[in-house]
């Protein structure tokens, strides 16, 4: 009998689930440091890493059962709670940095902007530490487990670089060979697992399903097409959204500011610590108001940090109006199908740091996702077939789903699920239904474990999902020089959208030359909306694509060739069994094969 593990490496929290051959599917409690003096088990591990000051724990601090040496940092509940008081020493969103294209993801940059921490960590190291901690828990729960079965989830919006870095972190953590799964797909697997045979009654061939996942700090969308005939359903993930740093935490912060402003108007100003306490209190009050429609307001108490609790606690009130206006209408306004989010703040300079969404309206981000999904589908005959023909494209400027599966803590509130359905129904002009029976809190880990079992046993329905984007490499164009004009960089499509695991594609009929022995620059591009592009297709101008990475590198000339010589090569794209995208430059004469992984390292 085997155990299969699913790891939800979340932005705010991590979770582990186990599936067994006997049909069991459960969340494993995670042993972690709970406070300055003790350890314990929790269903979730907050994805927080706290780096203590040198003298903070003269005796080393709490130690985990598997830990031998003193640790230089803490993870989990204690890290999160302590880090609130010392934000300069807290790394709270390592995962968002892992997919930040402009950050040095292997460099010691976290905690970002900290002036007090001596030895900082890289985003890659933070993921490695979290995974190592989760692995220690898996080993404790199931000492004989074969970990090739493990599945780690990533946001659907993670690009290939962030995916490759996640795999690398897993290898470094000792997890060995793991498989990646997109979080919205994991939520879907958890739902089918939870529903048993019943789920097939909630969907039918020709349906298009939206997985709408809004967690604490991120929003992630995917579209899954239901195809097949004669009762043999097939599923295909046909679109993924962009990485959006926007979620429930933003709502809590917005509500806390609103309450704080009311207090200021009444003559009470909160200090920084009281404001933190307010954010906590507002979260609970918001949940109470959203889950109980008869409640008109919730009193809030804001303690100070001093010992005089009764004398210095401040009273405030969060009203239904606040929640409706800020959380519901602010984050989920009912908008037209042409209202797109503001993408950049006005002004030429942006503070460095994480690229938080500039527009809080999740409905507008959803409109943008569905509009890009439509453009993407329209570019590919296969996708048009998958969505049941072009009729769906003609109905609306958006590619509208028939049903929605909700995931993420935000959608514990029925009022917010209702709001999204209302919005979609209004765009569609017809009711959009909810796939019932979702479990917003633990679905991703459970779905990952169920998928790990499904992969190993081959029993069950898998979602067909190749690469979510198409990938391009920049090409110097061989145009004639024109004074005052820089030739446009062309882009060669090396991996079309939808390439599946374990497949390879050679770009045939074209010869390319590689400069060796001198520094040259490679530019990589990607697109979420060009499903129609084929491998080997040359786009005249890369400007319409999203640049994902640049690499400066000197490739040594193969034996018998001089530095500076141009070497004729063939190009081949491969997607490994793990879902890692690689580009190979093959030089048949010398037998050389340069592999370029999309985490951009030349080996």
């Amino acid at each position: 009998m085997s155990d299969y593990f699913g790891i939800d490496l979340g932005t705010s929290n991590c979770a582990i689930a186990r599936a067994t051959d006997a049909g069991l599917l459960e969340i494993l409690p995670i042993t972690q440091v709970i406070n300055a003096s003790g350890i314990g088990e929790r269903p979730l591990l907050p994805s927080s890493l706290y780096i203590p000051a040198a003298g903070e724990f003269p005796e080393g601090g709490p130690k985990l059962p598997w830990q031998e040496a003193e640790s230089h940092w803490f993870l989990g509940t204690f890290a999160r709670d302590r880090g609130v008081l010392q934000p300069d020493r807290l790394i709270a969103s390592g995962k968002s940095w892992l997919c930040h294209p402009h950050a040095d993801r292997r460099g010691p940059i976290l905690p970002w902007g900290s002036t007090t921490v001596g030895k900082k960590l890289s985003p890659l190291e933070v993921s490695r530490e979290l995974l190592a901690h989760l692995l220690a828990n898996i080993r404790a729960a199931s000492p004989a487990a074969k970990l090739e079965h493990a599945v780690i989830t990533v946001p659907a919006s993670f690009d290939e670089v962030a995916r490759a870095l996640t795999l690398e972190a897993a290898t470094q953590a000792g997890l060995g060979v793991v498989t990646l799964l997109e979080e919205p797909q994991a939520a879907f697997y958890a739902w089918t697992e939870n529903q048993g045979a019943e789920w097939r009654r909630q969907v039918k061939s020709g349906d298009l399903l939206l997985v709408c996942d809004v967690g604490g700090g991120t929003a992630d969308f995917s579209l899954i097409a239901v195809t097949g005939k004669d009762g043999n359903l097939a599923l295909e993930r046909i679109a993924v959204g962009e990485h959006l740093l926007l979620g429930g935490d933003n709502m809590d912060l917005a509500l806390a500011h609103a309450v704080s402003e009311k207090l200021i108007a009444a003559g009470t100003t909160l200090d920084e610590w009281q404001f933190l306490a307010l954010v906590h209190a507002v979260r609970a009050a918001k949940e109470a108001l959203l889950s109980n429609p008869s409640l008109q307001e919730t009193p809030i108490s804001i303690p100070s940090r001093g010992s005089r609790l009764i004398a210095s606690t401040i009273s405030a009130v969060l009203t239904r109006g606040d929640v409706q206006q800020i959380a519901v209408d602010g984050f989920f306004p009912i908008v037209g199908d042409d209202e797109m989010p503001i993408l950049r703040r006005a002004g030429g300079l942006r503070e460095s740091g994480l690229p938080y969404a500039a527009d809080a309206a999740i409905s507008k981000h959803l409109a943008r996702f569905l509009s890009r999904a439509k453009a993407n589908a329209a570019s590919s005959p296969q996708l048009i077939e998958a969505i049941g023909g072009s009729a769906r494209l003609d109905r609306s400027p958006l590619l509208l789903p028939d049903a929605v599966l909700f995931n993420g803590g935000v959608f514990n509130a029925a009022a917010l699920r209702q709001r999204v359905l209302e919005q979609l129904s209004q765009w569609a002009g017809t009711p959009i239904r909810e796939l019932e029976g979702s479990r917003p809190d633990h679905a991703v880990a459970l779905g990952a474990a169920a998928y790990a079992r499904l992969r190993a046993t081959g029993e069950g329905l898998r979602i067909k999902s190749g690469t979510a984007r198409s990938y391009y490499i920049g090409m110097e164009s061989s145009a004639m020089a024109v004074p005052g004009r820089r030739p446009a960089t062309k882009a060669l499509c090396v991996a079309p959208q939808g390439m599946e695991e374990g497949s390879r594609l050679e770009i045939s009929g074209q010869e390319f030359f590689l400069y060796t022995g001198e520094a040259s620059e490679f530019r990589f591009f990607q697109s979420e909306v060009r499903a129609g592009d084929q491998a080997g297709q040359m786009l005249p101008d890369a400007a319409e694509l999203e640049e994902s990475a640049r690499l400066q590198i000197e490739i040594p000339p193969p034996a018998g060739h001089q530095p500076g010589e141009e070497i004729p090569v063939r190009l081949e794209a491969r997607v490994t069994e793990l879902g890692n995208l690689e580009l190979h430059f093959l030089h048949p004469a010398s037998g050389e094969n340069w592999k370029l992984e999309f985490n951009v390292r030349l080996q």
Partner: protein
Amino acid sequence: MKNSLIASGAVLLGLNAASVYFPQQNLTLAAQTVSAAIGMVLVFLAIRRQTPRKPEVAATSKPTTPPPRAEAEIVAFLALLQEHGRLVDFAKEDIAAASDAQIGSAARVVHAGCRKVLDEYFDIAPLQNAPEGSSLTLESGYDAHTFRLLGSVPEHPPYKGKLLHPGWIAQSVKLPRLTGTTETRPWPVLAPAEVEVSGN
């Protein structure tokens, strides 16, 4: 002894649970929140005593520090109630001159925090599912540990009566395990002094 501890703790907790949901009674809220605290500690004490002791470390094994004492664990639990529910602050503060509104506001902090601790570390359920005020009969052989009889009780069951309080039971306890074995104190501090650092 320990059963009466559990029962009295449970009763005190129950009193509090009832009062917190009837804000119009907040005249006595403070007293009841304090009673809840004492109740929690009593329940906790009793549970600790019921857990079987770990076997003594064999003399031949390498010398380690002695296992954390029960007192240290109780102090650590009280520290949790202080950290999340400000319980020590609340009980130690002089409330003679405070208004009910002030006390009520502070009680929300205590309530939210202590409840969080209870929910996180215990799985607490009522002992009896029948509503308060309903009639019940205790036949001979009833579990005497889970009932406390009030009024004029005959020598032998069956006992007919009215349920005043359904009781509580902790179905599981998962308190943090102390790891600081090299502490210079016999038990952890209840709450460290807090210093806002402004530079050096």
